[in-house]
């Protein structure tokens, strides 16, 4: 570790040290060593079953670690949960019980209090304020069962916000939402990050919508969670391995970046099969130094993806400019930890 923290503000929000989780005898992931900077917007990315939601549960202290440690907001995982807002992916489930948006948000303030406590005017005002922040104050008295998935998700975010958390965790907040609702959600997250300086962590399998606000990502690649800042994650070859299918990073003339599955044109020269490396080969991608020596055996993929990758490089620091330098520092830290970990293997 070359850089030490100078002020409490710069203390990382989440620190994992050799963290590991098991479901029964099966290791979900291990050797999780990373730091998530305070004030960042981080995606947790990986294929289905890679343990993304498990990561959130571990950070919330809801499942025990089988090894190592995770520190959240300066305390062991689970002990600072009062300062964490959590939005699980439950807004898609059917709600039969009568409950208004406002009452749902109020539970975020009063739901963990035993005993007889009538709702105060102040709590009511706070809940309305949270609903106003996500833009649905006018629908405060609407039943959840009458709301669309997008609106219910905003209610869930308001419920997480109302207790004024420092860290907001969302599980697949964009899944099952139409394009407009996805935009709205991303906009709300950006506002929370910039105006309220909330650290945000998002489980996502589609990065595109989040790219403009993303500082970095925890990627669950080969069973070991790592943190990388956004310019390193936006690497076609890394993403290809992450998703197990050929992916390219495209930049439009306007400067927007997209992650897309490779177009059909390339399948003429390609075998069309998903890129399937062994764990040993994949560890080379952890180096993030651009020289993917291990990939000689996948020359077609290389040829197809490389030009795009290079084109994006000069723009790496463009998204989230305000937090970019902090993120770069974090990356330097992550990388040094990282290469030492690789050497051990």
């Amino acid at each position, binding site marked *: 570790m070359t850089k030490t923290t100078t002020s409490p503000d710069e203390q990382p929000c989440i620190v994992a040290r050799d963290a590991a989780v098991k479901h029964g005898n099966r290791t979900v992931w291990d050797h999780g060593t990373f730091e998530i900077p305070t004030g960042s917007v981080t995606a947790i990315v990986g294929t289905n079953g890679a343990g993304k939601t498990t990561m959130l549960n571990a950070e*919330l202290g*809801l499942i025990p670690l089988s090894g190592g440690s995770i520190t959240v907001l300066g305390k062991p995982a689970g002990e600072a*949960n*009062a300062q*964490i807002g*959590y*939005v*699980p992916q*439950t807004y898609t489930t059917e*709600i*039969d*019980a*009568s*409950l*208004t948006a406002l*009452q*749902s948000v109020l*539970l*975020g303030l*009063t*739901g*963990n*209090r*035993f*005993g*007889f*406590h009538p709702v105060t005017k102040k709590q009511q005002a706070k809940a309305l304020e949270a609903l106003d922040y996500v833009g649905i104050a006018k629908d405060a*008295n609407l*039943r959840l069962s*009458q709301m669309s998935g997008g609106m219910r998700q905003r209610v*869930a975010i308001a*419920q*997480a916000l109302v207790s004024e958390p420092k860290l907001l965790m969302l599980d697949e907040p964009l899944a099952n939402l139409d394009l407009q609702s996805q935009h709205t959600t991303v906009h709300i997250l950006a506002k929370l990050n910039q105006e309220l300086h909330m650290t945000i962590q998002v489980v996502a399998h589609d990065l595109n919508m989040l790219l403009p606000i993303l500082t970095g990502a925890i990627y669950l690649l080969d069973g070991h969670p790592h943190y990388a800042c956004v310019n390193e994650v936006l690497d076609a070859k890394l993403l290809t391995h992450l998703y197990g299918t050929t992916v390219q990073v495209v930049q439009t003339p306007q400067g927007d970046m997209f992650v897309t599955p490779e177009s059909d044109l390339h399948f003429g020269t390609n075998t069309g099969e998903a890129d399937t490396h062994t764990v040993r080969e994949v560890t080379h991608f952890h180096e993030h130094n651009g020289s993917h020596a291990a990939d000689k055996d996948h020359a077609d993929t290389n040829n197809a993806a490389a030009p795009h990758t290079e084109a994006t490089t000069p723009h790496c620091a463009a998204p989230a400019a305000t937090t970019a330098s902090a993120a770069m520092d974090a990356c330097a830290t992550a990388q040094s930890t990282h290469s030492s970990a690789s050497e051990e293997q």
Partner: protein
Amino acid sequence: MTSAMTYDPDWMTTLNAAFMQNAFLAGLFISLAAGIVGYFTIARKSTFASHALAHIALPGATGAVLLGVPVELGLGVFALGGALVIAALGKKASQREIATGTVLAFATGLGLYFARMSSSASQQLQSILFGSILTITDDQIISFAVFDVLLVILMAFIYRPLLFSSLDEPVARAKGVPTGLLNVLFMAVLAGVITIAVPAVGTLLIFALVITPAASANVLTTSPFAAMVVATAICLFSIWGGLVVATMFPAPPSFVIVTISVVIWGICKVVEKNRN
């Protein structure tokens, strides 16, 4: 309510009989318990469990008759045992429902087996399956009242955490609400409600008394508390209305009670459909 129908002096005499007074009182206590618990049962998606518990309690009831102990004791012990087993099965709905349904089927069979082992249990079987609200005793009324008082005190204490864990289980768990403990507690309360409601409408029809009024109330109200009040009112209207109508036109009270509850639910469903 009864004043509107005082034109028939004969059935007014019946309504004033001691057993009828007990039936009305039992209806009041059952409605309060069912109204409160029904909302949570729906919010927790445990309606099938409530149906199953009544059936799991059946061998307890017939077994109690066989052993010569009070029916409520057998009902309560089996319902509580079943509740704890279902609570232990956790919240994985699909697995839980298969296990619950399997135990339900076995328990119903066992209930029949116990009933056939003695003639007195066999005679009791029909009243346990379909209820006999007209035979509620003074002692039962007292135990219902005690149960309701304890229930209201407990609910006032755990109201918000139980609501949070019922409606947003993962978030509540992350916020430190003891969701596992509340689940066990809730299932135990549900077993208690089933135990006091079975004598009124029986194990087969209990769903219409605990769940159906709460489902109707969910359509008519927007807040959990209002839903519980309205569910209690619908339940009370069904039982009292059922008693009055069944006295005017001789019919099994359980049938009329369930019919009223179901008709109200049907109307609510139409209201909901037109609203959306």
